[in-house]
């Protein structure tokens, strides 16, 4: 059993130590690759596709052609200083990234085992004390249900506090499976209105709501997180829905408001993707205060800005 958990394979983009805002205390956050949602404001686009992919930063590129020389698939062509990629041919073998002298090329995503991830997380055990621990994030961690479960189960068995950051969009069986090894669910609520939910995220709201109901009924510790994007999901009606949701689920500890920021935007081009929300600015501090006040006028349930 232990052996199987340790060997469970998964694909991640990064292990981020000394994470401060992904659950209580000091944490190590592992970002799992792959997500069924396509939220327009997604700030981790490298976590969308399930498989590793090549990432290219043109501003670091000197046009030296070392990548073209080593790529077995002919992905790279460097012509007169212009570097073009045929991504459809790429197998993410990593040869170009290894050859690139300026790190303009890198591979987003790597295959690991749950045991390897846990070993790194345990290196920081001294800093977790009673509150900190491991956070499984993504992407959507439940898109790799066996791997997510193995990570959490191993962490739990090692005495670490465990957190999951999830959209809640997964078969109930996957949620139920991690429930006993998860100390805290950080569950995202993307939009109140089902139609807009579908429009902004590409998936239906209903399965998420159903999972939330069932999960809350088990008595699981839950914090609901609300990514708030100016003009998209921060209307008065959205705030009504958010307040109502907290009223409806009294076991949810509190609501955490997540302000839109555009730091994820620059990641898109490197992956050959278009950013869905060009030109949108970070949420202003004044607006954040306004939203918090509006919510607290609607309900006494607690909210904080994360």
């Amino acid at each position, binding site marked *: 059993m232990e052996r199987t958990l340790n060997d469970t394979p998964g694909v991640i983009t990064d292990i981020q130590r000394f994470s401060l805002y992904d659950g209580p205390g000091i944490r190590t956050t592992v970002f799992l690759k792959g997500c069924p949602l396509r939220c327009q404001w997604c700030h981790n686009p490298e976590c969308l596709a399930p498989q590793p992919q090549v990432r290219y930063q043109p501003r670091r590129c000197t046009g030296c052609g070392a990548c073209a020389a080593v790529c077995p698939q002919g992905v790279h062509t460097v012509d007169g200083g212009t570097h073009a990629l045929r991504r459809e041919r790429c197998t993410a073998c990593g040869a170009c990234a290894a050859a690139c*002298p300026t790190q303009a090329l890198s591979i987003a995503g790597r295959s690991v085992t749950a045991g390897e991830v846990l070993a790194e997380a345990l290196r920081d055990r001294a800093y977790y004390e009673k509150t900190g621990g491991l956070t499984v994030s993504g992407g959507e961690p439940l898109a790799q249900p066996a791997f997510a479960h193995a990570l959490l189960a191993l962490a739990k068995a090692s005495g670490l506090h465990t957190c999951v950051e999830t959209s809640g969009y997964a078969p109930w069986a996957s949620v139920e499976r991690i429930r006993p090894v998860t100390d805290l669910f950080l569950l995202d609520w993307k939009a109140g209105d089902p139609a807009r939910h579908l429009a902004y995220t590409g998936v239906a709201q209903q399965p998420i709501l159903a999972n939330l109901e069932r999960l809350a009924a088990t008595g699981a510790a839950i914090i609901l997180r609300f990514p708030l994007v100016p003009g998209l999901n921060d209307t008065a009606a959205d705030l009504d829905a958010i307040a109502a949701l907290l009223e409806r689920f009294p076991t949810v500890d509190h609501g955490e408001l997540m302000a839109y920021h555009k730091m994820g935007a620059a990641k898109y081009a490197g992956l050959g993707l278009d950013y869905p929300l060009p030109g949108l600015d970070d949420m202003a501090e004044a607006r954040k205060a306004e939203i918090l006040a509006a919510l607290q006028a609607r309900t006494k349930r607690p909210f904080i800005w994360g």
Partner: protein
Amino acid sequence: MQNSSAIDFTIEKAFTRAFQENLSAPAALREARCLQALYPALLPPIEKDDRFAGRTLLMEYRGVGFSPDVTLYSLPHGMGYFYREDVFQRALAAVPPDSAEVAEIREMMAFWREHNTTAQVKTHFSPRIRKYLPSDSFAGDVGVGFPLYRMTGAYENYETLLTLGVPGLTALVAKKQAQGDPEGFYEGLRLTVALLRDCCLAYAGQADSLAEAASVPRQAELAQMAADLRAVASQPPHTFRQAVQLSWLYSCLAGVMDYGRMDVYLGDFLARDLAEGVLTKAEALDAVVGLWRLMVARRTVYHGRVVIGGVGRRNAENADRFALLAMEASRIVHDIEPQLTLRVYTGMNPLLMEKAMAVIGEGATYPMLYNDDLNVPAVANAFRVSPAAAEQYVPFGCGEYIIDHKGFGSPNGVINLLKALEVTLFNGREIVKNEPMGLALGEFAAYESFDAFYLAYKRQLTHYVEVLAEAEQMILARTAEQAPFLWMSLLYDGCLERGRGLLAGGIDYLGATLESYGNINSVDSLAAIRELVFEQKKIAPERLLAALRANFVGYEAERALLLAAPKYGNDDPRVDSLARDLHDFEARIIRDQADRVGLHSFLMVVINNSANTYLGRWTGASADGRAALSFMANANNPVGGMDQNGVTAMLNSLAHFPPEHHAGVVQNVKLSRDLFAKAPEKARALIDGFFKNGGTQAMMTVLGRHDLEEALAAPEEHQNLLVRVGGFSARFVSLEPDVQQEVLARTQY
């Protein structure tokens, strides 16, 4: 302080006369007569807002004088009977060329060039020392090792001073003197105690005259000051203020720049005055703030240590009261001195750590934290003393441990590990001035394995450590013949009983330390050489040497590979174990010199100051990708920006260094103001975890506006920045440059 047109050489002349008249007298008498030429003449005036009398002696501006350490412009300038050629030259230029004074000044110059302590010491250097340590100027010349000339880092026994006071010391010296004084040592001490009394009275008189013209509230302060000075001139101190006054003045007179376990020696005075209503809490704080401001004005550059907390205090409760007051004073004064040092231990009053974190979180940098749980057993081992003696360890200056008022640990030498690597790579040559240097141990291309090369590097290091130890012993022994250092000896345990000076067998633990720089650049260079030259063979040995010689011009691809090689500071076991091996090897070979050259201890220190920058200016490009003549990493911290796995990973790398064989390795931790503001409990968990993991010290800097501006200007040097937003995955290093700017602006660093 003085301009060339008005150089008054009266003191130099009197001092020279006193020295020459006593040239063949016992060293103690000669020193005492010379001191009489300086005190109280060199006492600087009490200034407008001074709460206590005593400022830096006007010594360092003189052409000659007597001081344990004249440090100017951040560089050591002499010790004992020091001589400053530059001041004499200025004096010469200021007198008419045909005047009689010219001859007089020239005569003095010729005399002191020969008789200053440093020169006297150097005449005894062996040919081997002269060959391998040809230069004294670590800031101004190429070299692997450099001797230093300074008797610094003394910690006096202030408890003795405050318990006995002037009359008690006078009586004690007289009693010993009555039993015989063949070498004039006690007579010297007697004259020194008399000088202490004279200086108290001189300052009392000065306070009286200042009071005449002062405003009403200042008049009261000056009257109090004068009364306290007169009191301590004739009896042991009875109040907190008197205790502060006497201990502070003594430090100034003695030229001692580190102030000891102040919470222990002042704690009882403070508690008693507060209990008896002699002082209110506000007045006590005002007194400590006043003392701190005098320390600021003294600008010792690398000293000003005040130690609080820790195990081994006889009066922990009273001492803690002072410790809390001291931290509050540091919060208010917010300056680079005093270097407030908090020794933390299991079972410490939790209020102290709470206060410390609050003060640090405001950006005070102080207190610096020392982990007694690890340091006490480590000191016992490194210094070969009992655990009880080790409880009295105190870091001086930049961080060298010694045993409080029982041990002495300078002048120190300097070793540049990265320069040693350079001369090993280039087979006995250095590449900045292209001169022969060090041992020629073989052509780099001829090494068959990394291990073989690493072994050669260790041989090179061993050679320099041996020569530096020999120089150190020679400096201590010859300086001891020159002078007993009466001020320091008077309050050092053992000197009075044994009738011997500080360096001449008077104290229990006469040792020294060797300051090691360039350690981490060397580790990263070795790791890169191992991986790229020997394992992956991506860079041929000749090509590496050519790249280093060319400072990477035309070798940009090689430099990129070297920079991308694994680096220390990322909790990467392969590099960190190399760091551990090199560190412990060096610590042990240094420690092993003590018995060979006859010192109680000779220990490695890795400390913070500017030497990493100065030495870097004379060190060629290195295999970690560092450009020629640029600064080297400070202490045992990662090379700037190379720690990219977050603070915990960096701390794990730091904690890798075993503490048992050295006298202190400084560990710097930079944290964002945001962390303290938003999540102080996480900052605390970080430090607790670090100490639990093996961290021995934490110098915590809270990043301020200045750091942010620096990072905005050069993000490539700040790639260890943390981007921490809920659910957001980003490594600063992998972001596009414009986004790096945006992240900096947003996350407030």
